[in-house]
């Protein structure tokens, strides 16, 4: 039995010549079709280079335009010629000039001999196709496409819209069930003759002339009418990216291609010298082939598509800068923000680092400088502790910090004294977990021992800032996880919230929390709050501190309460 090769060429002719020679030397007759637009001089050069091979023929030429019937026409012409000139050929393999055989020709011939009468062509009904790009599936067969997609895109799109609007539909010829599939097939002589010599051929051709991308549907549809046995898969490895363009193989793909089960691969970069040298070398029967693992190639290209369409969440860089709605308000990993805890507990910081197994920073947004963990002046990635640099673009600062330390949970303190512009980002970031004890900012002021009259304004200012932050977090657009306690509620029962914090931050922690951070002694704080009220301020964020708890201190006035602690 003989395998005939039809080759469609338009660029990189020297590579096509090499591959044609490879086939011919192995005993396969070849018919080459040149795109009409290939310069005659280039064509003549190639014809001359292959002149010593009697079984390499050249077909009449058609100008090929992607997506149009011209590609099918070229295939029909070349196939007809091959069947006529080489009566011994009983399988015909359609290839392109940038296809490369991955396995010895003898192996392919043996494979086909073992499957006599089988047509290897991917052929899937339109309803089941998942790969088409641009939404044109069934409509490829029911609309008309007189305009070039590449050169007359607006007309193309406009005409499609118009037809949809008017509800114009073409009738699919009786007896045809539209099928789609890879254009690289290997069919038997009997099937091809059935298609080429069909009494309906003229009618079919007329219909497919106005079908969109008929090279992916002409043979795929007609084969179902004439073939005795269709094996619906392509023997050619061909991968497409998310815009429907074929992926290209380079020298560094050699180890992957070795593990493919396909007989041919498309498309090969013309300057991939190593690939051409490796696969066009005379077959060495002794050479062991690695275990086939075509999944590796699938994974490589699937990952490439994912990188292009989804990217790495939380990464902002020169070629990925999503808008807010598309992930632009998201850090790379979950992180914790603590407001008020450092004021309420003496040793909250080391405690948190221990139980949450996280890197705990100080006030990253402190007004004077960035307080990184361990009080470093520069942090991972070269982040500076300069407040000016940070405030120049706080969003970049925070997303950089989280991106740079992915793999390690980050936590930091925040408060109304810190630079506030970052709050917009924090509230909208689904990766942020915000733990807030509202009103705790008053504790350090109370403990400072300054007269209430002096710090009244300061408490009011901080309260206003914190209230604004809390209002922002309670807006419906907020995506961050927020846990909010008023100071009074928290002090009432601190154990439960602390457990909750650990569970939130470190859900897989095996051990239960055994130790608690030690709380500042709040004896006298209630009277301080009362004194603020007496001075005309209205503390609201602290919650209701029952004044009767320390009625004695109240009687003695605030100065006493400060001594009490």
């Amino acid at each position, binding site marked *: 039995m003989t395998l005939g090769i039809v080759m469609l060429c338009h660029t990189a002719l020297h590579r096509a010549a090499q591959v044609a020679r490879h086939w011919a030397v192995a005993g396969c007759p070849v018919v080459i079709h040149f795109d009409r637009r290939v310069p005659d001089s280039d064509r003549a050069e190639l014809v001359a280079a292959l002149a010593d091979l009697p079984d390499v023929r050249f077909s009449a030429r058609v100008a090929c335009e992607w997506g149009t019937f011209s590609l099918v026409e070229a295939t029909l012409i070349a196939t007809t010629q091959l069947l006529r000139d080489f009566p011994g050929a009983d399988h015909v393999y359609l290839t392109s000039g940038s296809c490369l055989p991955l396995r010895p020709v003898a192996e392919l011939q043996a494979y086909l001999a073992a499957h006599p009468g089988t047509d290897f062509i991917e052929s899937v009904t339109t309803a089941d196709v998942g790969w088409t790009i641009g939404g044109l599936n069934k409509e490829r067969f029911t609309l008309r496409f007189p305009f070039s997609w590449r050169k007359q895109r607006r007309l193309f799109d406009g005409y499609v819209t118009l037809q949809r609007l008017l509800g114009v539909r073409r009738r699919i010829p009786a007896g045809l069930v539209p099928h789609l599939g890879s254009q690289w097939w290997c069919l038997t002589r009997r099937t091809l003759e059935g298609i080429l010599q069909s009494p309906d051929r003229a009618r079919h051709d007329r219909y497919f002339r106005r079908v969109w991308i008929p090279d992916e549907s002409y043979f795929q549809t007609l084969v179902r009418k004439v073939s005795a046995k269709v094996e619906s898969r392509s023997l050619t490895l061909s991968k497409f990216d998310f815009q429907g363009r074929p992926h290209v193989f380079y*020298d*560094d793909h050699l180890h992957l291609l070795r593990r493919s089960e396909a007989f041919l691969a498309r498309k090969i970069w013309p300057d991939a010298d190593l690939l051409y040298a490796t696969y066009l070398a005379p077959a060495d029967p002794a050479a062991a082939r690695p275990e086939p693992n075509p999944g590796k190639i699938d994974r490589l290209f699937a990952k490439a598509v994912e990188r*292009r369409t*989804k990217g790495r969440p939380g990464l902002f*860089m020169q*070629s*990925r*800068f999503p808008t807010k709605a598309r992930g632009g308000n998201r850090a790379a990993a979950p992180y914790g923000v603590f407001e008020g805890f450092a004021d309420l507990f003496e040793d909250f910081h080391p405690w948190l680092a221990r139980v949450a197994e996280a890197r705990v920073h100080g006030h990253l947004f402190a007004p004077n400088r960035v307080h990184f963990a361990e009080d470093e002046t520069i942090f991972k990635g070269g982040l500076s502790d*300069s407040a000016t*640099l940070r405030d120049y673009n706080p969003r970049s600062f925070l997303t950089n910090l989280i991106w740079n330390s992915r793999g390690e949970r980050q936590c930091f303190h925040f408060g109304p004294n810190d630079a506030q512009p970052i709050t917009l980002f924090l509230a909208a970031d689904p990766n942020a977990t915000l733990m807030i004890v509202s009103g705790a900012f008053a504790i350090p002021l109370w403990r400072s021992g300054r007269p209430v009259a002096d710090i009244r304004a300061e408490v009011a200012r901080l309260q206003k800032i914190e209230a604004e932050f809390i209002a922002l977090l309670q807006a419906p657009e907020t995506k961050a996880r927020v846990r909010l306690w008023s100071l009074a509620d928290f002090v009432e029962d601190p154990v439960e919230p602390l457990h909750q914090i650990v569970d939130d931050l470190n859900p897989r922690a095996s051990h239960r929390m055994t130790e608690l951070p030690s709380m500042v002694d709040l004896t006298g704080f209630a009277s301080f709050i009362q004194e603020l009220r007496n001075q005309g301020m209205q503390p609201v964020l602290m919650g209701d501190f029952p004044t009767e708890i320390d009625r004695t201190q109240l009687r003695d006035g605030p100065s006493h309460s400060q001594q009490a602690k």
Partner: protein
Amino acid sequence: MSSYRLRLRRKYLLLRAFRRRRQLKPVVNRMAACPRQPILLFSTMRNERIRLPYFLDYYRKLGVDHFLLVDNGSDDGTREYLAEQPDVSLWTATAGYKQSRFGTDWMMHLLRRHGSENWCLTVDVDEFLVFPYCETRSLRALTDWLDSSGTRTFSAMLLDMYPKGPMHEQPYHEGRNPFEIAQYFDSGNYVIHRNPGLGNLWIQGGPRARLYFADQPKQAPAMNKIPLVKWHPSYAYVSSTHMMLPRGLNLVFEDSGGEKPSGCLLHAKFLDTFAAKAEEELRRGQHYAESHEYRAYREGLTRERDLWCYWSEKYINWRQLEILGLMSKGNWA
């Protein structure tokens, strides 16, 4: 900014470049020997003799077919050396660097004249392009792929490289790989703003921002660059190679979540040659923003001579840069 004003601005830039064409005096033109569809490199330089052998060699290996260079009044043999190279076409210009928009006018004239419909790489002599798979695939593989995806511009962010220890301690010798000395970089302190007028990303950061511009971050140099372009006579570089007109060319990034392919320009500025260069440029006053940058360096240099810090990353290869998120393979596999 209205598109009409942008159009006017572009026309103005093109006219500027055209009017300054006579400032360029041809020394040698070897363009005729170029292959079909060559990949071209454009650069302006002054007194860079010591860097040239490695620079030319690096880009030849990468796959550049021809160099179109402007010598801006060198007196250290730069011009003579370049004139001898078989793949260099050379022009000289004695006019002010500053008055020619820091060489951009000259570059644009040459790009328009010789680069149209070719892939053109516009870099400084201390910038070294790395792109995805650059150790196994040539620049031609990249441009072929960009062609097939209908893309005309390729982004490569500037990445400042620096040595460990004071710059003068490890002298640079001619022909040596500068990144054997300047091995380190900052991996994650780049801040990004989107420029509303031209639509490009404005990236700042790295060691320069960290050390020299901590008090005035807005003045820190821009790191975003679009050095590789399939040129068209109507294109214009607006400010060095940072941004372009028409503004659609600036969309080298994806804003709906994915990543487009991008590279990096390794910046070999911080070598022992830097101090002398800073002095000279400051004296000439021919650099951007009244040589503000060089002044900051001089002050920075005396204050803090070592750019290295504990978190500096040691350069390995492009894959490292891609993992760190400084560049991306995009959908090129």
